[in-house]
């Protein structure tokens, strides 16, 4: 089961680019992605095409696939390894009028136990001599949740998203971006397969499992600030900070710094460091004292207290300089992200023969690889 709605929003974000007074560029991107870490491999393509017409409109479409093969720590300790596929399609249209831009988008995501539809609407306007771009947005998502092997289980999720963005030219070398976003969820929010564990001295390992149970509502707020600065030798540095809080008592901070450096002969290199840390949800525990200990129960490591770091290296090469037929420009791009996760209250249950609750804390590394070609026409 995936967080399809969130990715729907991200896919729609990919369709919403550019400043209010200028339509996005005509371009086509074909990307192959690969994630490998924690016993999970995910691969697939993503194709994004955008084209202007009638000088006031720009349409876009995205096809995305996740092919998942999972033997994650959750799976190997409570279930059996599995494979599945998720397919997502997004379409969008932008309309430009003077300094206003309006966009409408739709995303559908399908997998064998989860279906998600997301509608999105946004407005943006350039103002103050085009130094400032303000954008407002709203999205509505409806998900259908099912469970393999259980024809009697079916539930729904409704989500709404409100976003406010500001892009500001501060100096001739410095850009500022500010974003706020509120997301509300209502419905079946936990994973229908995942289980929590509780102390059970009647078993050899000292614990047993029961289904997790989440609240049926969640509201989250996030705010971020980004800066990007142009250096005298034609390079750019950027920094970003994001603060997050929600009604499940999770709070999180994210910092990121990066450097982009183009050189002669058409190469551009980039490096980035990202640091993330969060506190646990108030109903999370690695080991509950007994069965049905409280109304809400979670042992999802994404809801635990943990920190992660990501190191990125990337390179881009211009393959069509000066144009070729109808293609104005083209690039080949390679990006590698190395991610490191360290959990503070999620234990590695693959280690047996120890007292329940004293297993070593879990950690894992992951490598994320992207290779894509882009053409502007």
């Amino acid at each position, binding site marked *: 089961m995936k967080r399809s709605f969130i990715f729907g929003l991200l896919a729609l974000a990919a369709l919403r680019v550019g400043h209010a007074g200028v339509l996005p560029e005509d371009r086509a991107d074909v990307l192959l992605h690969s994630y490998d870490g924690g016993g999970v491999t995910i691969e697939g393509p993503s194709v994004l095409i955008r084209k202007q017409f009638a000088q006031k409109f720009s349409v876009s479409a995205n096809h995305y696939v996740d092919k998942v093969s999972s033997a994650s720590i959750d799976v190997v300790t409570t279930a059996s390894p599995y494979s599945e596929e998720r397919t997502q399609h997004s379409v969008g249209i932008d309309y430009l009028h003077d300094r206003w831009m309006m966009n409408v988008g739709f995303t559908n995501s399908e997998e064998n136990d989860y279906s998600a539809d997301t509608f999105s609407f946004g407005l943006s306007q350039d*103002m103050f001599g085009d130094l400032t771009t303000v954008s407002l947005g709203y999205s509505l998502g409806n998900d259908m949740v099912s469970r393999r092997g259980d024809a009697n289980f079916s539930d729904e999720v409704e989500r709404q998203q409100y976003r406010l963005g500001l892009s500001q*030219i501060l100096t001739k070398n410095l850009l500022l971006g500010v974003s706020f976003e509120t997301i509300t969820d209502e419905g079946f929010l936990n994973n229908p397969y995942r289980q929590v564990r509780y102390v059970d001295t009647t078993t050899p390992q000292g614990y047993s499992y029961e289904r997790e149970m989440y609240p049926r509502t969640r509201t989250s707020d996030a705010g971020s600030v980004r800066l990007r600065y142009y250096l005298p030798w034609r390079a*750019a540095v950027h920094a970003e900070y994001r603060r997050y809080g929600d009604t499940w008592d999770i709070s999180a901070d994210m910092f990121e710094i990066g450097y982009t450096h183009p050189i002669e002969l058409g190469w551009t290199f980039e490096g980035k460091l990202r640091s993330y840390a969060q506190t646990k949800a108030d109903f999370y525990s690695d080991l509950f004292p007994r069965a049905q200990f409280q109304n809400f129960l979670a042992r999802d490591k994404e809801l635990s207290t943990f920190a992660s770091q990501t190191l990125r290296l990337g390179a881009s090469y211009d393959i069509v300089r000066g144009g070729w037929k109808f293609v104005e420009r083209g690039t080949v791009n390679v990006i590698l992200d190395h991610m490191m*996760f360290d959990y503070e209250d999620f234990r590695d249950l693959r280690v047996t023969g120890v007292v329940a609750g004293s297993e070593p804390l879990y950690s894992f590394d992951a490598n994320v690889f992207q290779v894509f070609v882009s053409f502007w026409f």
Partner: protein
Amino acid sequence: MTAKTTSSAVRCAIAAAALCALAGCSVEPWVKPYERDHLADPIMSFDRDPVSGSYTGHVHEAREGARGATGAAGGGCGCN
């Protein structure tokens, strides 16, 4: 930052931005159009390659409790 107080802040910010836009605010730009060549360089884009940004955002969102306010971002899951 609590969810409730931030929600109020977001609503106020949205209202302020909408009012400002409707009022047709205008000021003399302190960075002239002809001084924006550095800002127009592709390396200054917050999201130079949307297909990659969307995927990268998804990779993080699927493995973290936090969500939202990514500007534009991006994938691969394996939440189980």
